């Protein structure tokens, strides 16, 4: 299985108490297209723990934004359950011999919600918009593709000419959500982009211009978003699919539990507390599914800041942590991580020497390096409202105390953590981060987290900055042969483990509470692609 994405980082605002931006159980403002009122229409209800910052396809990045976007928009390709790319808006594609030119055939029966048909011109426009606005995932392809090199060869054929060989190119296209050029240009406001005005940013802040399975029905940024089925969707609809989808932002566990048990919610987010999942399992009408993912939970250690810049200290930390308790008690169902890449990836290196819980070895390493008890003080940061991370932090603190390292816990908001990540000096010594691929390729795991060019984001809080790693990643990108690439990937994993660059704690098995009568959930290893509501049916 060419495993790929899971969900990227941001563990959002999961609450363990009365904090967080929760909304009401029954919000008066959520203009929900209430399925209950009209019994011929079916509504699917889910909670999220993080608000939808934006629904503009050129800007969305985190799990909730991507969830919204992939339902309202279509990409050229689509990841399947194995992580392979299958046709979506593109029926067919070919790659030139020099691996620089990709040619896609756009399907002719696809229409936007406005009624306009999907054309190659729209694809070109989407790319231009992406690069011009220059936010969101635009950075993924910067340097790789120039917008001038996207050509609409004819009404339904589009050509991409890359600047250099880039093996993950096709995979990144799952994030290129195609927008309706005519619709957007009809709805521009004043802006800096000449005759394209604001590129429709204000319009797309609250409307959709996509061709996807669902249209935007209502949007209340802090509390909810709802979608309505697009009847003319080119793929058609399975029987018993949902006419409406409503996602509400609810962070309080007790509320989620209550709503699931009285049937007002059909699916929980994956960020509820373990105790909640336990209770839901025993609730009638509800089941809890445990889904192995390719998201890894890391303890990112700052490689550039003393004392964690000393490999001996990092080694000690890696051997001083009780991985098993973490897995069995704090994150039940998860699997031991082995190196930076999730174990289910095809290119996972089985031969790496993953550290285990060995406090004697840790203490020996420290003693050999000349440290005595009390010499070392480090800071540990995690998302304040995240129940699981708090437990993990307390365990970490206790373990480190046993080997003579003093840990100060500093819970922060996610916003502050991303802020701290932007400079080496500000990034704390150890940080809790979940990371899963945002597109179906191991490249995202390596590039975003360990390449020097991708520095200063929450994904690269370990500030590895190693020339060897950099050149290996670059080489992999330029290598088209899958086997050769696999070898390079294996080397990268080995080297990162030898350096004790970070602590690789566990591979996440996410949990969802689901109504017994909801089926169709399909895990796909690309961020939020398991929340494509087109799959879901009422049984």
């Amino acid at each position, binding site marked *: 299985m060419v495993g790929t994405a899971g969900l990227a980082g941001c563990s959002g605002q999961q609450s363990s108490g009365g904090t967080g931006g929760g909304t009401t159980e*029954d919000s*008066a403002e959520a203009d929900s297209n209430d399925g209950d009122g009209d019994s011929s229409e079916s509504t699917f209800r889910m909670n999220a723990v993080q608000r939808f910052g934006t629904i503009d396809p050129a800007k969305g990045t985190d799990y909730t934004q991507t969830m919204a976007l992939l339902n309202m928009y279509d990409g050229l390709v689509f990841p399947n359950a194995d992580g392979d790319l299958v046709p979506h808006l593109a029926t067919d594609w070919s790659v030139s011999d020099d691996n620089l030119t990709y040619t896609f055939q756009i399907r002719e029966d696809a229409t936007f919600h406005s009624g306009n048909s999907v054309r190659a011109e729209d694809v070109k426009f989407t790319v231009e918009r992406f690069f011009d606005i220059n936010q969101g995932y635009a950075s993924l392809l910067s340097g790789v593709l120039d917008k001038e090199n996207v050509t609409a060869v004819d009404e339904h054929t589009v050509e991409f000419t890359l600047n250099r060989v880039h093996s993950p190119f096709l995979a990144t296209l799952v994030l290129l959500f195609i927008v309706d050029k005519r619709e957007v240009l009809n709805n521009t406001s004043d802006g800096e982009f000449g005759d394209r005005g604001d590129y429709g940013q204000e319009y797309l802040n609250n409307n959709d211009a996509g061709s996807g399975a669902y249209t935007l029905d209502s949007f209340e940024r802090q509390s909810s978003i709802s979608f309505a089925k697009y009847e003319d969707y080119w793929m058609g609809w399975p029987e018993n699919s949902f006419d409406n989808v409503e996602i509400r932002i609810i962070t309080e566990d007790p509320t989620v539990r209550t709503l699931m048990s009285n049937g007002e919610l059909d699916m929980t987010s994956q960020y509820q507390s373990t105790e909640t999942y336990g209770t839901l399992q025993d609730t009638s009408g509800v089941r809890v599914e445990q889904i192995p993912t390719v998201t890894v939970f890391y303890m990112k250690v700052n490689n550039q800041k003393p004392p964690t810049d000393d490999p001996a200290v990092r080694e000690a930390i890696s051997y001083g942590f009780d991985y098993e308790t973490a897995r069995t008690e704090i994150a039940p169902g998860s699997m031991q991580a082995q190196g930076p890449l999730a174990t289910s990836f095809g290119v996972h290196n089985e031969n790496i020497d993953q550290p285990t819980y060995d406090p004697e070895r840790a203490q020996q390493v420290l003693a050999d390096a000349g440290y005595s008890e009390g010499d070392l003080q480090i800071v540990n940061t995690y998302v304040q409202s995240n129940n699981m991370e708090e437990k993990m932090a307390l365990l970490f603190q206790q373990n480190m105390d046993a080997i003579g390292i003093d840990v100060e816990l500093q819970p922060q908001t996610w916003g502050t953590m991303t802020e701290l990540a932007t400079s080496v000096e500000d990034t704390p010594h150890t940080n809790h981060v979940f990371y899963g691929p945002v597109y179906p390729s191991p490249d995202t795991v390596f590039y975003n987290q360990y390449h020097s060019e991708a520095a200063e984001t929450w994904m690269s809080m370990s500030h590895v900055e190693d020339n060897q790693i950099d050149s290996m990643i670059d080489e992999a990108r330029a290598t088209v042969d899958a086997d050769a690439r696999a070898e390079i990937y294996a080397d990268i994993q080995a080297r990162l483990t030898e350096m004790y660059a970070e602590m690789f704690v566990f591979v996440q098995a996410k949990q969802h509470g689901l109504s017994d009568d909801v089926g169709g959930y399909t895990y796909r290893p690309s961020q939020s692609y398991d929340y494509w509501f087109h799959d879901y049916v009422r049984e």
Partner: protein
Amino acid sequence: MKYWQYLARRLGGGVISLFGLSIIIFIVSRILPGNPARMALGAMASEEQVQELTREMGLTQPLWKQYLGYMQGLLTGNLGQSLETKRAVTVDIVQYLPATLELITVSILLTIIIGIPLGVIAAQSKDGWIDHGTRLIAFFSVSVPGFFIGILFQLIFGYLLNWFPITGQMSSRFSGEVTHYTGFLLIDTLASGQLLAHLNVWHHIFLPALALSMAGMGQIMRLTRSSMIDVKNQDYVEAERGYGLPDWLVTYKYTLKNAFIPTLTVLGLLYASLLGNAFLIELVFSWPGLARYGITAVINNDFNAVVGVTMMIGVAFVGINFLIDMLVGRVDPRIRLQIEEAT
């Protein structure tokens, strides 16, 4: 000092207070950690994008210039845009404020309905066991942390007895039927002609309002009691009794009315202080009011929103205090002293 002179002085004081408040809040908002531009753009933003937005937001200008711009905005009612919701802060506040105001108002109503009669009864049975009983209740209500009583109510009346819903303002099944004229659900449900929805809102608002009213209830109870006792001992009451007026008439019509004045002013002060306390109750009951908005803003360093909410509450505080001064000064200057001693 004449009444209008007194008023002018208080008004001037109020304006100075607001001015001071604006400076403090401005300073606070500028020392908030993190670059708000980066917050707004998200983690994937490039450096140039962040720089550009920082410049657009005026954050690179000298502090005094920023303050002028800020004051200008405040005075024209422009509080800037929330980085979170991407809407004008004023719009956000207008959306969330009614829910909070509704909660506070119902809370005060409960305080009055329960607290004053209890205070009257306590005064009548002075030093009797009812008096001691109410005193104990008053202690309880003032000592218990607001959020805690909220949780207790949820546990007992919600989970255990299932008499009341534990979160929210109204069941979602009604939300399609109610038109939002004012934002005050109790009013809107009536205006939309939805009686069931109206009852449903009462059902939802009761527990949080009761929890919120606890703190003030003890005070009102005690104050009513002591005022009633004071007045009861006055000569004119004795005289009325001497005229053969029935006891209950003396109690309610004459004694209570005069005893009511300090109570009234305390109620006003209470309204102001509830604005601050409502925060905790709103969190516990997931009430869609200003509290959640404000706290999310603080957590996300959404400084426009933080400034907006804080200024709003500050203005409300000062405004209510001024209104009270107006009423009090009108009635009896001596009362001021009595109030200050009682609270």
